[in-house]
Each structure stands twice: as structure tokens, then as C-alpha cells.
């Protein structure tokens, strides 16, 4: 550890490349905190949006026209308006309306970022799941129905497991997009990776170095996600379904 810090300190002296996050413990802690916040934000939004997306996709197959329409409207709305404006709408317009608990706002910037990004990703996930559900053959549903499965059971035990598998490649893209979209939280001062890096580069005046670190961090996160999803896809593969 000390060797690495020493090397980067030497690098700064020798070439002027200033990577303080490797030898300055304060900067390192800030950077790691930003990294963790990005991961936490992504994880929260991912889990919530997958659950809500599956629910929305199920509601889109509802027998009540009003339910179907409102889900479609929700999806169209969130997909055709800028995510940044959505975030501002939630944080600046809806935020002040929320009651305060003990002098503190009920939802901070992190909370609003989770809400806003979750709704955005839910709209995308719903669309992906819907396509996945449509790809499940009708005969399967009819077969399950003839075996006495209820509507919910069919969805839970037959349609959803297959739809999830069909949706995997599209979900991977969506997940990558989610991680990239968390950078927007910078705009409402959530201490995530970009925000922390911006603080570091404005104090240390090492913009180019931090930019490269930042880009590599995101490319790294995205790479890990791609590999993990490929592994999961292979793991969940059902013989006779897909290639």
C-alpha cells in the first residue's frame, strides 16, 4: 500500500501527473465515498426498478383498460422527457412540499435521486419486460392454465421466469444506462463519483488526471456489470429456450 502511494508521489514529482487519490488519505477517502455512493445509488435504483418494472409490465396486461392506459402513459411520459428535468422537478419542485421530520427534510438529495432515477428506470424496465412477456408463447400460458394455475400463478411461475430470461440482454443495457444516468445526481449535489471528483479536481487542480480516473472508473463498473450479467445469463439459461 505504502509502495503504491510512494510510487504515485514519485510520479507527481517526476512527471507532474498528480493523482492525489493514491497518496493523500483525505482525497482517497472522498473518492472512495463517491465510488460507494454511486454503487449504492445504482443498487437501490436497480432493485426498485426491476421490482416496479415487473409490476408495471404485469399491470400492462391488466383486464381493466384504465390501469393499462395509465401504465402506458407513465412509461411514455418518463421516456420522452429529459431525465435531468425530471430530477429537478422532483428535487426542486416536489421536494419543498414534503413535510419535515425534526427539522430535517424527509428525503434528502440522495433520496430524491433514488426516487427520480427509479421511476425513470422503471419505465424502461417495464417496456423491456413487456417485450419479454410478449415473447413467451401463448401455448405455454394456455398449458399452464389447463393445469389449473391461477392468473397470478401463471405470471409468477411460468411467464415471468421465461420473460426474465428473454429480457436479460436488454436488461444488461438498461443497467449500464442506469449506472451512467446516476451521474445526473451530481446536479443536485449527491456526493457520488462525479461530485467527489469535481471537489478533488477543484482543490488539487488536477482536472485531466481526475477526468481519466473518472472515465476509467465508469468503464470499469460497466465492464464488471457486463461480465456479471453474461455470467448470470449463462447461469439462468433454460435448455430449449434461446440459443
Amino acid at each position: 500500500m505504502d509502495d503504491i502511494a510512494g510510487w504515485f508521489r514519485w510520479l507527481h514529482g517526476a512527471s507532474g501527473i498528480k493523482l492525489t487519490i493514491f497518496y493523500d488519505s483525505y482525497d482517497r477517502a472522498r473518492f472512495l465515498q463517491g465510488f460507494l455512493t454511486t454503487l449504492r445509488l445504482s443498487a437501490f435504483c436497480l432493485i426498485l426498478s426491476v421490482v416496479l418494472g415487473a409490476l408495471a409490465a404485469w399491470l400492462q396486461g391488466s383486464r381493466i383498460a384504465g390501469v393499462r392506459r395509465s401504465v402506458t402513459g407513465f412509461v411514455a411520459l418518463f421516456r420522452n422527457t429529459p431525465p435531468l428535468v425530471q430530477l429537478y422537478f422532483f428535487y426542486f419542485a416536489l421536494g419543498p412540499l414534503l413535510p419535515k421530520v425534526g427539522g430535517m427534510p424527509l428525503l434528502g438529495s440522495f433520496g430524491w435521486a433514488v426516487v427520480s432515477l427509479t421511476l425513470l428506470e422503471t419505465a424502461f424496465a417495464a417496456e423491456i419486460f413487456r417485450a419479454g412477456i410478449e415473447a413467451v408463447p401463448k401455448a405455454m400460458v394456455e398449458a399452464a392454465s389447463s393445469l389449473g394455475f391461477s392468473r397470478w400463478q401463471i405470471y409468477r411461475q411460468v411467464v415471468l421466469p421465461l420473460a426474465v430470461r428473454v429480457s436479460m440482454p436488454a436488461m444488461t443495457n438498461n443497467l449500464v444506462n442506469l449506472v451512467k444516468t446516476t451521474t445526473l445526481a451530481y446536479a443536485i449535489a449527491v456526493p457520488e463519483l462525479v461530485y467527489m471528483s469535481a471537489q478533488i479536481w477543484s482543490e488539487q487542480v488536477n482536472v485531466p488526471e481526475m477526468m481519466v480516473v473518472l472515465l476509467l472508473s465508469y468503464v470499469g463498473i460497466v465492464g464488471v456489470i457486463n461480465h456479471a450479467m453474461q455470467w448470470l445469463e449463462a447461469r439462468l439459461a433454460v435448455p430449449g429456450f434461446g440459443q
Partner: protein
Amino acid sequence: MSVRAIAAKLDVLPRPRGVLARPRAGDRSSGGGLFAARTGAALLAVFVASVVLAQVQAAPAKAGVAELLVKWTPLLAQGFLFNLLISALAMALGTAAGALLGSARLSLHPPIRGASWLLTQFFRNAPWLVLLFFVMFLLPFEFTVGRVTVPFPDWIKATLGLALPIMANVAEIVRGAVQSIPTAQWEAARSLAFSRRQTLWQIILPQCIKRMLPPWMNWYAILTMATTLASIVGVSEVMTITGRITNAEGRTDLLIPIYSYVLLWFFLYCYPISVWTRRLEARYAER
């Protein structure tokens, strides 16, 4: 009973259909069903309701929210047009560069292919905001060519920054479209003594235009929505102006109406594009 068991019993599991097997070009594909035009109405309803509510709540001495919105509409419109200008320029730049990058990915020389692959992957996987910061901070604010100093304003830098991810994604669209043309056509062209360039320009690309159009339009809509990012790096587009207006008025009851107003504008611009994209996709898929 598990899926596996049902699958084994029924043996009716076909391969998933094309909907999802599409390449990544469709990342943020177009909006919900065609009949969701009602959504616009819903958004409009939220907007109108918030205006009316704020209007009613406003003290009689102060100007109503509706009046304020009317008052600021020309300025907002100016900002919005600026967004559209940035999106058009970035799209033009991104498409030109992307076409080059996409052709490089089809090159017969492995080094060119490899380098263009790397560039494409990098710019597709890096967050837009980070790319924007990259361009904003690392490009000079003016150039000196000989004795002439050419200023290089923020908004042009932002346009360049937004063009980068578009470039990579257009490259991917071009590559995908060219590869979707059956190899037999290349062979047929070759047997008719077409050179590689002639084959590409006269036979392959004309067929690709049709396949490239829907994803390309889709990216245009995404880009238009992404132009709001320019406000974070200090370009005076619609979001910056909205922020300034709310600061100048200092009225909390204006917040919901004005933000839904801006949302509505973007929706009215982007939703028709996404509907049109869907229609084109459906029409081309039939053939």
C-alpha cells in the same frame, strides 16, 4: 412445477423472437404504445392543475402564476430553441463522425478495426456528463490561428461533448446495418466486378439507410433530452434559464408549474419523434 419441467413436458419453447434480439443500438428505444397520446394530455392536466392551484393560492396582491408563465414564455422559448440548435448541430457532427467511425469498423485492416472498436466502446460506455466535463475542461476557450484569435464559446464545446457519444452510437448503427445485409450481396457484387468501395457505396449503403433511420431518430430524441445537461456546465439553455427565472421570482408556488411546463415542451417535441420512429420500425419490419 419448474419452468424446466414444463418446458420438457410441453416442448413448445421456440427461440425468443426478434424484439429483444435487437442490437444495442436500441438502448433507449422509442416510447410506449401509439395510443399513449393521452399521456401528453395527462401531463398537460398536471401542468394546468398546478397552475390553477397556485393561481388560487396566490395572494391577491401578487401576480398570478399563469401571468408569470406567460411573461417568461418568450425567454423560455429562446432557451428551448437553443437546446434544439445544440441538438441539431451535435447530431450533424455526431452523424458525420459516426459514419466515418462505423466505416472504420468495417475496414479490412485489423489495426483500424481494433482502434475504431475501442473508440466506439469507450464513448458508448462513458457517461454523457463525464464526457461533457471532459470536453469543457480540456479544450481551450479560444484558439490562436496565426495572429487571429478565434473564440471557442462554451456552447460549442458542449455541442462537441454531446456529439461524442452520438458518434459512437451512430458508428454502431452503421456497422449493425451493414452487417445485417446478407453476405450473398457482397459476393454477387464481386462477381459483377464491383470494387469493395463501389459495393459499399452503390449496393450496401443505399439499403442500409432504411434500416438505420429508426435507431438514428431514436438517438436524436435521446440527444435532444440530453442537451439539458449543458446547463450543468454553464450553457444558458432552457434549464439554466428556468433556474434563473425561479431565482428571480423567488416564488415557491411557481416551481411545480414551471418545471412541468418545461417537461411538457420536451414531451411535445420528443413524443412525436418516438411515435414516428415506432411507425417506421413497424413498417420496415413487415417487409
